[in-house]
């Protein structure tokens, strides 16, 4: 068979993407339970999300410590026993503390789910935060804080957030001794009492889900009286002036760079277009930043850009680590790329490539039950629904070079950027 290796095989881009949607299950006490039944393996993930906003950095620090130590002991079991019980079933817990939400996920083999779920409930309801665990946690965290301060990427990232969101806002949190020292058993117990109410919690059950798994959840959580937390609203972060900051780190041979600004929330009409613009700039391996600064100049091992959405706001950042000798040139090239997006229309071939790439990425992000659950969570926590996915595909199908230049000019002008150099 003779084949042409020069001509690429013909491409077909799917016009629609099938999305398996979460199904809301009605529970007698009003619990918010969503189910995604997909996949071949007999596994279950249950994620419970608590909207537990923090009014300032100290309350964020305490709330997230409380969450990290949620499985550190109950009146019946110490931390080791709890860990042993979960391990014995081959199950594991994942906790994600956040300034707006905190979530706890249980991953379990289906056959053990009733047992592991009972265990999870006991751990969540009866957390006592033993002194000895707090002491161990403190010494470990002080140590990792000191190690992190030696990393230019860590310094750049944290000082960037502080600059963009303000020194007192939870989004601008920089880990520090003062937050670790402030942790006491009493404060953790207080946060435990006031931030795990079920009334506003969201349960997402994914994996191979049958009525057995749903029954396990409703048996544990479906008949208890709902409790409600005082809803703390995060303060609106101030829009800081763009600044250029140098965080010195002696003896480093590379510098960590972070350039960006406060940005739109996911629900803003420009957000989807902007996410496409971000892809051109630094959102995939073939992006302009990678092509120029890594693949053409060899200044760095990697460079990228991203959008971090929060419920009412967000951030945009460009991030890299570069040799000190090429730092100035690398920064110059970053701004060259921002100006190019504003001033030169995107060539059709590049536009087609990014559109196709993003449709493929979208499909990948929906592959498997846990991915589907994550995408659903990304909707519900931002007060969006599945029509957002249709809008996204619509944006990909219709976005034009002039839209991209317009978005870049409106939101990504170099003069609006904060620039942090650590090194």
């Amino acid at each position: 068979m003779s084949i042409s290796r020069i001509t690429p095989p013909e491409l077909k881009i799917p016009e629609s993407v099938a999305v398996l949607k979460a199904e809301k299950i009605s529970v007698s006490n009003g619990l918010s339970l969503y189910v995604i039944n997909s996949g071949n393996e007999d596994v279950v993930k249950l994620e419970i999300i608590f909207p537990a906003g923090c009014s300032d950095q100290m309350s964020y620090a305490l709330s997230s410590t409380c969450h990290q130590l949620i499985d550190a002991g109950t009146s019946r079991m110490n931390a080791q026993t709890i860990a042993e019980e979960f391990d014995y079933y081959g199950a594991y817990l994942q906790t994600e503390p956040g300034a707006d939400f905190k979530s706890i996920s249980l991953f379990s083999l289906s056959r053990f789910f009733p047992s592991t779920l009972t265990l999870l409930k006991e751990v969540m309801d009866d957390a006592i935060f033993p002194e000895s665990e707090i002491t161990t946690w403190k010494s470990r965290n002080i140590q990792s804080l000191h190690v992190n301060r030696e990393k230019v990427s860590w310094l750049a990232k944290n000082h960037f957030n502080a600059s963009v969101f303000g020194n007192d806002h939870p989004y601008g949190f920089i880990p520090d001794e003062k937050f670790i020292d402030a942790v006491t058993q009493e404060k953790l117990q207080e946060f435990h009492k006031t931030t795990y109410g079920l009334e506003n919690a969201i349960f997402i059950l994914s994996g191979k889900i049958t009525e057995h798994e749903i029954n396990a959840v409703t048996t544990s959580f479906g008949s208890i009286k709902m409790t409600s937390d005082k809803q703390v609203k995060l303060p609106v972060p101030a829009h800081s002036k763009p600044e250029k900051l140098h965080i010195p780190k002696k003896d480093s041979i590379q510098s960590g760079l972070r350039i960006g600004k406060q940005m739109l929330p996911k629900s803003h009409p420009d957000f989807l277009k902007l996410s496409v613009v971000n892809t051109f700039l630094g959102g995939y391996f073939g992006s302009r930043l990678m092509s120029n600064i890594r693949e053409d100049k060899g200044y760095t091992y990697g460079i990228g850009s991203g959008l971090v959405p929060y419920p009412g706001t967000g951030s945009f950042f460009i991030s890299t680590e570069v040799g000190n000798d090429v730092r100035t040139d690398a920064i110059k090239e970053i701004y060259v790329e921002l100006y190019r997006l504003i001033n030169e229309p995107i060539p059709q071939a590049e536009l087609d490539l990014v559109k196709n790439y993003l449709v493929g990425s979208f499909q990948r992000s929906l592959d498997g039950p846990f991915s589907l659950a994550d995408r659903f969570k990304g909707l519900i926590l931002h007060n969006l629904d599945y029509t957002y996915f249709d809008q996204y595909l619509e944006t990909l199908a219709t976005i034009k070079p002039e839209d991209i230049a317009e978005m870049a000019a409106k939101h990504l002008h170099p003069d609006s950027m904060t620039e942090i150099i650590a090194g």
Partner: protein
Amino acid sequence: MLQYEKFTLSNGLRVIVNTDTSTPLVAMNILYEVGARDETPDKTGFAHLFEHLMFGGSVNIPNYDEPLQMAGGENNAFTNNDFTNYYLTIPVQNLETAFWLESDRMLSLAFSEKSLDVQRHVVVEEFRQRYLNQPYGDAWLLLRPLAYKTHPYQWATIGKEVSHIENASLEDVKSFFHKYYHPGNAILTLSGNITIETAKTLTEKWFGPIPAGNKIIRNIPQEPKQSGKRIADETREVPYDSLYKCWHCGKRGDSDFYATDLITDVLSSGKSSRLYNRLVKDQKIFTTINAYTLGDIDPSLIVAEGKPAAGVSLEQAEEALTLEINNLVHHAVDERELNKVKQKVESGLVFGEMNHGNRALNLAYYEMLGDVNLTNKQVDLYRAVTAEDIQKTAAGIFTESNSNVLFYRSKK
């Protein structure tokens, strides 16, 4: 149980297919049996540098990434001491693009001077970012040559030193390609929405015409049995002391690998493990401690690394660690503890199989080890390990004369 089919092309390319029609995607994995252990001491880091060059254009296609992205695909690669692995996922409609791209770079590279020049810089920055400009980043660059005196595992995949990468020539690149990058030294696996018939048609069409290469005869110098404890003492600008201790153990293909792996699970898998509870929480000797085995193709290492608590010296920390580890030699683990680590392994394997990329990698990896069906035997092989196996294996590994210690001291 992972269902798969295997066939081999006449040029020696082994192909393994796992069909799952519930996904709109296909994962493709190509494993080349070449890693840092195939390098010579004066040209280290080459297998890894070469991995970068595989993205610098092939004989008929000037750029690898663009057409793949155009087809909605995504890819990456990694190199370790034993093998180099390239993987991608792509929407099933455009599957043929993946065959076109991967077969062309197996056929031949473009060997561009510009690509080599740029990737030398990129890899030097990677060397700096990951090993030199990170606290404790060079620990493995110190530990490997301490533990291995003869075997090429004495250098890391990034290489011994930056100059080896800077000095790589296009001639080196070409001869490396011709020696290792050919169908007989590769394993192609597919997982996702592809039938065995389609897989056969497409591999025959795109990979079939690639000439077979010469069989590789490896003559890797093997490490003699260590006959005395070795200690290295280094001081760096880091905030805390850190302890690294390793022992030689068997290779991945040995029957005692499963006992060896479970030993490290008993020691340090999760918050119920021994080292964490006894040395971090009860005795407060360490603030963090971790143990693992590398599972290399040639005789490998068990490693324990940790940071002593305030006021505890590295020497005291090592003593406490050794004492705790020797418990495994002197006392059999109880049934419940053994069952716990086995259950955890089984669960990890089940969760791992949910991802098509992982499935494709596993199939290729076990085929490289000599039997693709090992992928479905893992749970049973772990289940078969007894408390006596653990004790016997531990006794064979954990002797002081078989150990290597790195005291990584803080200048402060």
